[in-house]
């Protein structure tokens, strides 16, 4: 590594860091409280991943996605999941030309920088599956023709608690596509007062400052990929994955894809903390939100997965100097 390149990298990193911090601030000015969740979502965006938000209606899931789109200055689209939603309604479909000669592709709502798929688990499994390709490949294939979605591309899906009526459980294949799954939780009392009085919340959405350009976001994503992952830390991440596979209460442990997502998220966390390397606590922090929705736990109790992931984390010794 030459000094010049190192300098350039350091510059790109500090730029990306600035973008990240400002994004967190911008979203935080709209969404009351929940600093940790905002950071995770921002980190996901920087790491090029998608987020699954699981919570009750009305806690600010949509607002979070909207303000994220507004802060990046990207386009925003929203899909509301219902049981009769068809794949074509999401990715787009072939429609007759204006001239009436043949068909042309009419892009669906996924052709936006930030796509909010609301109540994903109310959509039927076919529609859920349709989302898989676009999330993984970044392109839509209709009638043999691929249509790339704009970059940066990020899906923020929300999910009602599984116990609620009229829901289809998300298949493991779907949940595995999400880099992180978080639960927003309720805001603090003071922050709820802010929402009710209009100091924060949807009323402020228009005032969100655009903190980065789309090329800036792309550059930040590259900077995230450049964050150094030392050998012992990588081994630590693998140990965590292996611990989930060995845990007695977990039926199916975390996949390698889960490990990739976890490390990418850890890189983003490191960058947000203005570091050029991933520290072990970045990995544990990433593991907390990127593993729980991927492992399959024997008991169907709510929160059991997060609990066993925490147990796995506690059982793996972190690397140190």
């Amino acid at each position, binding site marked *: 590594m030459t000094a010049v390149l190192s300098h350039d990298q350091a510059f790109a990193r500090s730029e990306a860091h600035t973008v990240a911090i400002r994004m967190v601030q911008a979203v935080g000015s709209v969404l009351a409280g929940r600093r940790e969740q905002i950071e995770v979502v921002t980190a996901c965006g920087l790491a090029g991943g998608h987020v699954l938000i699981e919570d009750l209606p009305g806690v600010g899931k949509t607002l979070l996605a909207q303000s994220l789109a507004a802060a990046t200055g990207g386009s925003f689209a929203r899909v509301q999941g219902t049981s009769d939603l068809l794949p074509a309604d999401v990715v787009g479909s072939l429609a007759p030309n204006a001239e009436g000669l043949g068909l042309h592709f009419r892009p669906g709502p996924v052709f936006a920088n930030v796509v909010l798929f609301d109540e994903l688990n109310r959509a039927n499994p076919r529609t859920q599956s349709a989302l898989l390709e676009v999330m993984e490949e970044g392109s839509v294939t209709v009638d043999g023709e691929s249509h790339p979605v704009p970059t940066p591309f990020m899906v923020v899906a929300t999910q009602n608690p599984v116990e609620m009526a009229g829901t289809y459980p998300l298949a493991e*294949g779907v949940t595995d596509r999400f880099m992180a799954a978080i639960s927003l939780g309720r805001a603090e009392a003071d922050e709820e007062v802010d929402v009710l009085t209009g100091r924060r919340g949807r009323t402020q959405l228009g005032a969100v400052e655009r903190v980065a350009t789309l090329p800036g976001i792309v550059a930040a994503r590259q900077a995230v990929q450049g964050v150094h992952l030392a050998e012992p830390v990588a081994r630590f991440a693998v140990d965590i994955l292996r611990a989930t596979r060995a845990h007695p209460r977990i039926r199916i442990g975390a996949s390698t894809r889960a490990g990739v997502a976890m490390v990418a998220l850890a890189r983003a966390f490191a960058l947000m903390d203005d*570091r050029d390397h991933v520290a072990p606590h970045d990995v544990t922090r990433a593991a907390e939100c990127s593993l729980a929705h991927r492992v399959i736990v024997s008991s169907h109790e709510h929160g059991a997965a997060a609990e066993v992931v925490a147990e796995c984390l*506690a059982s793996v010794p972190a690397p140190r*100097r």
Partner: protein
Amino acid sequence: MRPVGLARGVTAFLAAWFGGVLIALLTGATAVVILLVVGFVAAVAAAISGPLWLRHAEVHEVRTATVATAGDELSWTIRSRSPRPVHATVTVAGDEVAAGWLADGTTALVGRAPHRGVHEQVTVQWSTSGRMGMLWWRRQQTFPLSTLWSGPAPHPEPAAAVRAPDDPEGAAAPSHRTGHDDVDGVRQWRDGDEVTAVHWPSTMRLGEFVVRQRQRDQEEQWVVTARSGTDDPDAEAARVRRALDDCMSRGATAAVRVDDGPAQDLPSAAAVVQWCAAFEPRPRPSAHVPIWRRPIFAGPGPEPDVSLSPSARWAVAAGSMLPLAMLLQPLGYGSFELAAAALAAAAAAFVTTRQPEVKPWLRQLAGLVAGAAIVMVLIDFSAISDVMTAMRYLMPQALVALCIVQGFECTERRGARVALACAALLTTYAAGVRVDRGLGPMMFGAVLLMGLAHATVTRPDRRRRTAVGLDEAAPMRHPLRSTLPLAGLGLATVAAVGLLAVIPVPQGPAQLTLPSWLSEQRPVAFPGDLATVDGSPLLGGPLQGGGSRTGAGAGGYPGFSNTMDTSLRGDLGDQVVMRVRTPSPDFWRGQTFTRFDGTSWYVEQYAGGEGNEGPEHRIPPAEGDLYDLTVEPDFTQTFFVEVDLPNIIFAAPQAMRVILDGNVWYRPDGALRSDFVLPAGSAYTVQSRRSRATAADLRLASYEGYRIPTKYLEVPTSTSERTRALAQQLAAGSPSTYDTILRIQSWLGENTEYDLNAPVPPSGADAVDHFLFESQRGFCEQIASSTAIMLRTLGVPARIATGYVPSERDQIAGVWISRASDAHAWVEVWFPDHGWVAFDPTASVPLSGESTTESIGGALLKAFGAVVGDHLVLIIGTLGAAGVVIVVVRAVTVWWRRRRRGRWGVLQDRFVAAAVGRGAPANAANGELAEQFADDETARIAAEVARTLDECAFSPSWHDDDARYEQVSGSVAVLERIRSVR
């Protein structure tokens, strides 16, 4: 917190302790008392170490699943903090569902689900017995449980189900309707789905089984009827569950109603279990058993695990070998018998540790064979003639055989404890009979070995742990962890010495078992006469001194013959002649001499003397003895003979009772003689009446009105005038005879010199005159002779006695030691009302009336102080050297660690220690460790330290920098200080 009971087999220790008390009463051995006190203190420590451990053990939370089937395996997660492992029992509504050892942190106990019902609280009992595992203590707490629905296991017979609403007959079971028309979606595979229903395209895409979901199934509803008020609601609930499960597995929706009540929809399998769990709660009888109905000797006991690991079994065997050797050695057994006993103990350990287990009958047979073999080896049956002998001699052998046989029963902890108790009893017995120097170290070693063995027995067997420690790697650094054992040991030592300090030195053996044995029977030629050590008669008549210093008397000392030439003193070595177990020292008198001819003393010649058949002899008062015959003897001495002695029975004056195998000839002059010589290894016991005379009593004594036999006043014709004049001069103005004696003694002390090589008086000269006025150098015989002669010239009855004086005391065995050089001669002066009183300016034996009894602890401390005083330089040097070694080792460790870990590595270790000291888990990442420092300022410092350390470890752009190192080092020091302040 309350005690729950003794571990199995601990009662054997109690029994052994009381057996030890019996041995102490029977032998009066100091060593036994020391062992008993140590045992008592150890038992108290073992009993209170449980609560001490338990006080720091806390259970915080219990979690488990919310829906379960009664009796199925269920994991119980317990969050606890405890510096040591404690055993926990999880109880739900009187039903013990899980048990296991708790790790420090979170532990998953694999147990089972409780009986049917809705459970909202759980009781955890956690117990420990401390290190020694004697007394178990338990704490109990009830925790709220996030509601646990424990449903019944499905009954084979389903309850009645009716298809609703349009099928009133309900006879047909729900069946699948096939057809493509009604497919309107897919869903995950459920148990009971048919293979034909699998939707393969979705299955391929999603990687798991997906089946077609039929609208018709959703519409198909079955209502299951539960009968209320049946005898067994559990069985009814089980039948309902079976029926509902059948419905669910067929894809129909299920509802349930009680009797004719309204139907209730059950949307999911979980809802089914919940409904069945809540159906007709049934009161459960309490499992509590009142304490008086609990089995004492049967039952599992409070110990969760009674298994014995092979290492513990061998530790028990090793712990019992030293006691075996300790006991067998003084009983006169050689290395063959010792090896046989050790072999038998090892065989027992071998047999009981075999895997697979040896069949019980085979094991018991082996035990009996080994016991019989040991009995054959140890016991010489020809020596046993009657029951009393058997009782007296077979006790230790029987104990050894018992210990060996018990070894074959050590298959679990109770057997091991009983075996250790047997070994403890052997040790106590050995302490009762042994009087040698090696007893102290041996006792220490035996106690240590047995303690270690019991700790090994009690340690939880790691292989059998049922619990899964989820974060065992997070040890709680409790301050007690390192200091408690040391402080406990110190406290126990202080307590033991304190207890010993209030226990007086035992007053000798009790009446029951007065030791007496002859190691060899060597009869003397003429009973009643003196003999040499081989039994041949010692010829009487004056011995020719002729300048030779070599004694002609028995035992190498001229005082042990019929004639004592005052110019002779044997060539006496340093070997131990006898050890005497007795509460206080006294003169061990062998002979008395009455007639003096100017150079030699002569034993009075009696015709024959009177014999007395053994083994127990009543001795009548000798001439001049004045004591009340109705009073029991109060001063017991047991003499353990270490070298061959003639047939003189040494004893404290005024012997009333002698226990000796053989006849005893008692003489009017107070000397006792036996039919047999006393070879090395023999023992006999004498009980005497102690004189209570004090100095004040003696001063008041008056000779008026007494007719004193002239033989005690006779002086030889050679007694010079200046001797008489000196006596008169010293007696002049003296208020009492007692004071006169003291004056004579002090005059001798001032004007003569104690010298074992005093010049021999010229032939024909009076020995007393020569000593007093010519040489003025002499030893005990000259001093005693001159005192006696001067007193006789003053009309005071006096004679010479010879024997041994005790010179030192073995504090552990509690015996007084006399060496060959302690052979001695002293004056006995007769006082009215008191009889013969010994006076001796050279030996430091106090008047018996003025001697004080010491406590064991005081004597021990005194001896310890003497040892410390003697070896002060050595001790200080050793301590200093140890200190230097510790400092050097520490410096080397620091240097090595620094070399191995680098300076940042050392900082990292210090940071981890500081954070872990505040309760952080030991395997957390630096960033998480930093979160332990909650205070604003320290949190910032800790975060910075963590960040730098991570950078050092993982950053590609890291460069070492002295200034930075200094800064982080300072920050770590700040964090460490906070820890210590806390």
